[in-house]
């Protein structure tokens, strides 16, 4: 079986054993968080930074749940890890399977794309929030999760469906594979 089909199978089988919710509670809670941050913080850059930080905290913890429940134990290989992120991670946690495209020659950068998601249903950004990066949380989650796998990456939103693009695109760039250092 191809690696992709195998991961899809693992995703379905893991998902079937998990407690589930309708996506609405998730979408709306995220909306409430973004609205709260916009009111609390002085400018949109701070909101984006806070969303990224929250995402990073979530990613750090979510990756252990994902690995524990699926039994996957990947080496820090960008191609395989990104397949897991899209075919298993996104499938289980956001109900979608983004596509991966534009791999570079040494497989260190890739673009992840999706149209709809449980994060942004029914969301419309008012013009005052043109610079708000609604999906910044997702960037943080990817960054945090991959960091726990020993891969330091940079995530940038290069296209945003909420701002009129066809799809939301996230550019993921591997910067460093980290060697674990003994603490003593």
């Amino acid at each position, binding site marked *: 079986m191809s690696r992709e089909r195998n991961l899809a199978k693992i995703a379905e089988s893991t998902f079937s054993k998990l407690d589930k919710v309708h996506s609405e509670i998730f979408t709306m809670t995220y909306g409430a968080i973004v609205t709260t941050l916009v009111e609390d913080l002085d400018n949109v850059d701070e909101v984006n930074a806070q969303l990224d930080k929250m995402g990073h905290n979530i990613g750090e913890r979510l990756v*252990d749940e994902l690995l524990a429940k699926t039994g996957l134990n990947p*080496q820090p290989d960008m191609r395989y890890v990104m397949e897991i992120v899209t075919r298993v991670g996104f499938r289980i946690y956001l109900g979608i399977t983004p596509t991966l495209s534009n791999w570079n020659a040494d497989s260190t950068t890739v673009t992840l794309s999706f149209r709809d998601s449980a994060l942004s249903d029914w969301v419309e950004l008012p013009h005052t929030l043109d610079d708000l990066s609604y999906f910044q949380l997702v960037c943080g989650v990817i960054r945090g999760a991959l960091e726990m796998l020993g891969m330091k990456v940079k995530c940038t939103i290069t296209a945003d469906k909420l701002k009129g693009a066809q799809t939301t695109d996230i550019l993921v760039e591997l910067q460093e594979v980290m060697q*674990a250092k003994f*603490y003593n």
Partner: protein
Amino acid sequence: MSSICMLVIFNRSGEPIFERSYQWSPTMRALLPQTTPCLNDEAVGLLSGLVFSLRPFVSKISPKNSADSVNCFTTEEKTYHLLETATGLKFIIVTGPNVTPMTNELQQIYQLFASTVALNPLNRPHQASEDAPSEGKADNKKPNGQIVSASFCTALDSFLTRLSS
């Protein structure tokens, strides 16, 4: 398997973030947590160093592209069962000798960990102590990733008792 005496968890840098020692109670037919540790601090430190070197060692001696790993090693008195996750967490159960490798059980303990500790924002098991502000003297420093979770302990105790009976 009533010879389970301890569960230790190390984080990616080899710092111990969780330790729980046990003793089988024949009267209560349960595995009871003990305050006297099965391995003292020095032994835990040495175990950490040993386990930390195992993954790079195995990857050097294994054929290319194989994903081999040590899942248990034994002395005359004890057996050490090991699971290392892709996130660098090392779960080790210490038992008496002559116990078959507990890889499946360790995977289940990782799942318990995920359902309790990973979901609790107060626990940051991957945070190394050097990253966080240190309080007090260096020799008293405990890693900031120390796991404090009543629900993990409860779930773990029940699970290990069920294994032992």
